[in-house]
C-alpha cells in the first residue's frame, strides 16, 4: 500500500473550495457561507459537520460507513459527527485506484482501494484545521490535536468549525501523518454502526426508484421475447385506453419500444396493451438443454487454452498412473442477479444544455461515456447523481451500461423537456437480464498413497469478458481469467495440476455475479477436495491442510481460517443427526472458511441448521459490516444453489418473477456465526468472498449426510429437497 493522494489534488481543491464556497461569481462573500471544501473527499462545515464524499456506490455492502470511518478516524471526530454524500462522476478524482482511470465499484475493492486514500484525506483535513488553530492561537501546531471534533491543546479548546474558513485558504500538506493502529478508535471497532441504518428503517432512504422529478414521464420498454430480436413495427392504438398513457416510440437501436406514461402503473398497463412485431431473424433460439449439451461436448474435447501453463500430458499420465482416480463432471446454470430494487434510472435535461443521470450507479465512468456519445455532449456536460442502490450483486455494472443507455435512448427521442424515468419490472429484470454464465467443469484427480499426484481440470463455458469493452483489458492470451479464477491461481499447492479452458457460445448476455468465476470454481475445487479426501480415507480438513503447508503467506492465511473454522464449529463432533461439510476459498484477496451443519436427508428435506464462517480480510475496518457481508454472502450463495436457475426454451427465458426464481427465505438457514481473524495486512474485500465457500460447504454436508454428491445445480433439480 504505497498509494498517495497527490499534493496537487489537495491544492487544486483547496483553492477551488475558497472560490466555490467563499466567493460568489459577483465577487461578494455570501453571509454564512463558511463551508470549505478542504479536499475532494472531505467537507467540513463551519458548524463542524463533517461530510465524507464517498466515491463508491452503496448497495448495502457498506462503503458509505466504511469510507466515512476512515475519514472520521484521521480527522478526529466521532462516527456520529460524520455524514456522507456520494461523489459525482469524475474519474480524475474519484477513480477506483485499482481500475486505472475508471470510477466504479466491483471486485470487492471499495475498502481495499480507498484505505490509504481516505485516511490521507482525513489526515490532511486534520492537519489543516490544526494549523489554522495554531495560527489563530499563536501556539505551536505540534501541541494540538482534534478530539471528538474539538481542537485541543495549549490550554485552549474550540470546535473545528471555528477554523474551517482559515483552513480552506491554506495549502494542504503533501504527506500528512497517519494515525498509528495502536491509536485507532473507529477502525476495527465492532460498535461502529452503519450510517445508513436509520434512513433505511424509517422509509426516508432515497433509492433511484424513489425519485419523482417535477413533470417527469415514466418509460417502460417492451423488449423482444428473446435476445437479439428487433422491432419491426408496433400498434399502440389500444394503449390510449389507459389513462396517463402518453405515447410509444421505437428506440433508435430497435431493441425495444418505449412506452411513456404519466406514472408507473399507467406505463405498465399501456405496455400490456401494446402490440409489437418483432424481427426475430437474428434472435437467440437455443434452449438451456442445447447450451448444456454444447458445454458437455466441449468438455469431451481437449481444452483450447492451457490456463495453468503446465504440461497436460504429464498431468494426464500422472492421473492415469494413480492408485485411485476420482472423476466428476459439474454443471452450473445461468443465474439472475435479481437485486431487490428493479433496475431504473432517470435522465433530465439541464439548463446548460447538458443532462443529468440519477441512478444507483455502480460504475459511473461507463454510463458517463455512453451518455456523452448518445447526447453528443462533452463529458463535463453529463452529470451523474449517484443514489442509493437496492442491491446489485454485479447487475448494475455492465460493460455496455445497458439500462442507462436504454434510458438515454428513451430520452433522446423525446423533446427532452420532461425528465424520463426508466423503470424495469421484476419480469423485465428476470427475462431481459444479464446472467451468470452457464459453465461446466470436468476434473480427474489421481491419488496414490492417500496423496494427490495429479489434478486434471477442464473448464468449459461462456466467457463474461469476451465481446465486451473489457475484453482488451481482461483477456490475456485468449484466456478470460474470470472463467477460471480460483482454480490454478489459488493457494493450494496441488502436485501435477493442469487447468484448461474452452469457451462456448454465449446464448445470453453474461455478467459477473457476486464473486464472478469463484461462484463455480470454488464449488468444484472444494467438492473435489472432499471427494479426494474421502477416496484417501482422510479427514477433509486435515486433507486440505496438507496442500496448504507451504511457508507462503497465501498458504498460511488459508490454512489459518480453515483451522479456526474447524475449531469454532466443533468440526467432527456434530450432534446426533447432524452432518457437517467444510469449504475454504480465497477470493478478492480474502480468505474464507465455512462449515455448514445440516440435518434431515435429501428425500424428506434438508435443514440447514447453521453455517460457521471464519474470514481473514486483513485489517477489519468495520467488523460488524464484515460480519453482515459474510452472512449475506452465505445466504446469496446457498439460496441460489438450492433451487434457482434461469432456463431458456427456444431462446426465451422461462422464468418470469420470484415464484419461478424463488429467493432464499428466512427459514432456509437457521443460523450463521461469523468470526473475524485479527490481522495487520492491508484490508481486502468482503462483499463477495463470503459467497464462494458457502455452496460447496453445503454440498459437502449433504454428501456427508447421504452420500449424494450434487454435481449439477440447482440441487432441487437433482432430487435434493430442503425442508
Amino acid at each position, binding site marked *: 500500500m504505497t498509494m498517495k493522494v497527490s499534493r496537487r489534488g489537495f491544492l487544486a481543491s483547496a483553492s477551488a473550495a475558497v472560490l466555490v464556497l467563499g466567493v460568489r461569481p459577483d465577487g461578494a462573500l455570501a453571509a454564512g457561507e463558511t463551508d470549505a471544501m478542504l479536499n475532494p473527499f472531505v467537507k467540513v462545515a463551519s458548524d463542524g459537520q463533517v461530510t465524507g464524499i464517498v466515491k463508491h456506490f452503496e448497495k448495502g455492502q457498506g462503503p458509505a460507513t466504511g469510507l466515512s470511518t476512515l475519514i472520521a478516524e484521521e480527522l478526529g471526530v466521532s462516527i456520529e459527527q460524520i455524514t456522507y454524500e456520494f461523489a459525482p462522476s469524475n474519474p480524475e478524482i474519484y477513480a477506483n485506484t485499482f481500475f486505472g482511470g475508471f470510477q466504479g465499484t466491483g471486485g470487492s475493492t471499495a475498502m481495499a482501494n480507498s484505505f490509504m486514500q481516505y485516511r490521507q484525506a482525513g489526515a490532511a483535513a486534520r492537519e489543516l484545521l490544526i494549523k489554522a488553530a495554531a495560527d489563530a492561537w499563536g501556539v505551536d501546531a505540534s501541541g494540538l490535536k482534534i478530539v471528538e471534533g474539538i481542537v485541543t491543546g495549549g490550554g485552549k479548546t474550540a470546535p473545528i468549525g471555528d477554523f474551517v474558513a482559515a483552513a480552506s485558504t491554506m495549502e494542504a500538506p503533501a504527506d500528512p501523518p497517519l494515525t498509528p493502529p495502536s491509536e485507532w478508535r473507529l477502525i476495527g471497532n465492532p460498535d461502529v454502526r452503519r450510517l445508513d441504518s436509520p434512513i433505511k428503517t424509517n422509509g426516508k432512504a432515497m433509492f433511484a426508484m424513489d425519485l419523482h422529478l417535477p413533470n417527469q414521464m415514466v418509460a417502460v420498454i417492451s423488449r423482444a421475447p428473446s435476445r437479439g430480436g428487433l422491432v419491426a413495427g408496433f400498434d399502440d392504438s389500444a394503449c390510449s385506453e389507459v389513462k396517463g398513457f402518453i405515447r410509444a416510440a421505437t428506440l433508435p437501436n430497435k431493441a425495444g419500444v418505449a412506452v411513456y406514461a404519466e406514472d408507473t402503473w399507467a406505463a405498465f398497463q399501456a405496455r400490456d396493451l401494446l402490440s409489437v412485431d418483432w424481427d426475430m431473424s437474428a434472435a437467440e433460439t437455443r434452449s438451456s438443454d442445447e447450451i448444456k449439451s454444447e458445454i458437455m461436448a466441449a468438455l469431451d474435447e481437449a481444452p483450447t487454452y492451457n490456463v495453468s501453463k503446465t504440461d497436460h500430458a504429464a498431468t494426464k499420465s500422472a492421473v492415469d498412473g494413480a492408485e485411485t482416480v476420482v472423476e466428476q463432471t459439474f454443471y452450473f446454470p445461468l443465474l439472475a442477479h435479481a437485486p431487490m430494487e428493479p433496475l431504473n434510472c432517470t435522465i433530465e435535461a439541464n439548463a446548460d444544455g447538458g443532462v443529468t443521470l440519477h441512478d444507483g450507479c455502480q460504475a459511473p465512468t461507463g454510463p458517463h461515456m455512453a451518455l456523452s456519445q448518445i447526447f453528443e455532449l462533452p463529458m463535463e456536460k453529463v452529470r451523474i447523481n449517484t443514489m442509493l442502490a437496492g442491491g446489485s450483486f454485479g447487475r448494475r455494472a455492465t460493460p455496455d451500461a445497458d439500462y442507462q443507455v436504454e434510458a438515454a435512448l428513451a430520452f433522446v427521442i423525446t423533446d427532452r423537456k420532461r425528465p424520463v424515468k426508466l423503470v424495469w419490472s421484476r419480469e423485465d429484470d428476470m427475462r431481459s437480464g444479464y446472467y451468470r454464465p452457464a459453465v461446466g467443469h470436468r476434473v480427474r484427480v489421481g491419488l496414490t498413497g492417500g496423496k494427490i499426484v495429479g489434478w486434471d481440470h477442464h473448464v468449459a463455458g461462456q466467457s463474461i469478458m469476451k465481446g465486451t469493452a473489457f475484453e482488451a483489458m481482461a483477456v490475456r492470451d485468449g484466456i478470460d481469467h474470470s472463467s477460471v479464477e480460483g482454480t490454478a491461481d489459488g493457494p493450494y499447492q496441488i502436485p501435477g495440476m493442469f487447468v484448461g479452458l474452452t469457451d462456448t457460445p454465449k446464448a445470453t448476455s453474461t455478467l459477473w455475479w457476486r464473486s464472478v468465476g469463484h461462484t463455480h470454481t470454488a464449488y468444484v475445487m472444494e467438492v473435489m477436495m472432499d471427494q479426494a479426501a474421502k477416496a484417501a480415507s482422510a479427514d477433509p480438513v486435515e486433507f486440505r491442510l496438507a496442500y496448504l503447508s507451504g511457508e507462503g503467506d497465501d498458504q498460511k492465511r488459508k490454512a489459518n481460517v480453515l483451522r479456526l473454522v474447524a475449531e469454532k464449529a466443533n468440526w467432527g463432533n456434530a450432534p446426533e443427526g447432524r452432518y457437517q461439510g467444510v469449504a475454504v476459498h480465497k477470493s478478492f484477496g480474502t480468505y474464507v472458511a465455512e462449515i455448514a451443519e445440516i440435518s434431515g436427508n435429501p428425500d424428506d428435506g434438508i435443514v440447514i441448521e447453521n453455517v460457521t464462517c471464519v474470514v481473514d480480510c486483513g485489517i477489519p475496518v468495520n467488523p460488524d459490516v464484515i460480519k453482515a457481508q459474510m452472512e449475506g454472502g452465505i445466504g446469496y450463495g446457498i439460496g441460489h444453489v438450492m433451487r434457482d436457475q434461469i432456463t431458456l426454451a427456444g431462446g426465451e427465458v422461462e422464468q418470469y418473477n420470484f415464484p419461478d426464481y424463488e429467493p432464499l427465505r428466512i427459514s432456509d*438457514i437457521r443460523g450463521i456465526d461469523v468470526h473475524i481473524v485479527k490481522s495487520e495486512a492491508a484490508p481486502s474485500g468482503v462483499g463477495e468472498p463470503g459467497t464462494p465457500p458457502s455452496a460447496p460447504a453445503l454440498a459437502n454436508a449433504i454428501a456427508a449426510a447421504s452420500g449424494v454428491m450434487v454435481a449439477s445445480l440447482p440441487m432441487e433439480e437433482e432430487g435434493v429437497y430442503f425442508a
Partner: protein
Amino acid sequence: MAISLKLNGNPTTVEAEPGTPLLWVIRDELKLTGTKFGCGVASCGACTVHVDGEPTRSCQTYIEDVEGAEITTIEAMEDTKVGAAVQQAWVEMDVVQCGYCQSGQIMSAVGLLTENPKPSVDDIHDYMHGNACRCATYQRIRAAIQRASDILEA
C-alpha cells in the same frame, strides 16, 4: 374515481382508476416512497403496508377495495409503540444492507409482534416467510424481532 381513505391517520382522498394497485397510489400519487415496488405479484413483501392494522401486500390490493380503510405505511411506524420498538431494534442490530426490502420487513414484523408479542423462532419463520431479502439479512431480522419483543416487554 375518487377514493377516500385514512392514510397514516390523515383523511385523504385520492384520484385513481379502478384496478390501480394501492402501491402505486401510495408511491406515485401520494409520493410516500418508503413503500417499495419489488415484484408486483405479492411474492417479495417489499410493498407491505397495514390495511386496518393488517400487513397487506399493496401491490396486489386494488385501490377501490380500500375505500374507507385505514392505511399505515412505514413513514408512520415511529409513532406507534410496536413500530418504534421494531425500528429501534433494527438500528441497534444494523439489520439493513441495501435496505430496499426493509420497510416491508418492518411492516410485517410489526404485524407479527402486534398479534404475538413473544414469537418463537418458528413463529417468526412462518410469519416472515413472504418477505424476501436478496441481501439475506434474515439472521439479523430474526434477532431484531426477538430484540423488539424484549424492548416491548421491558
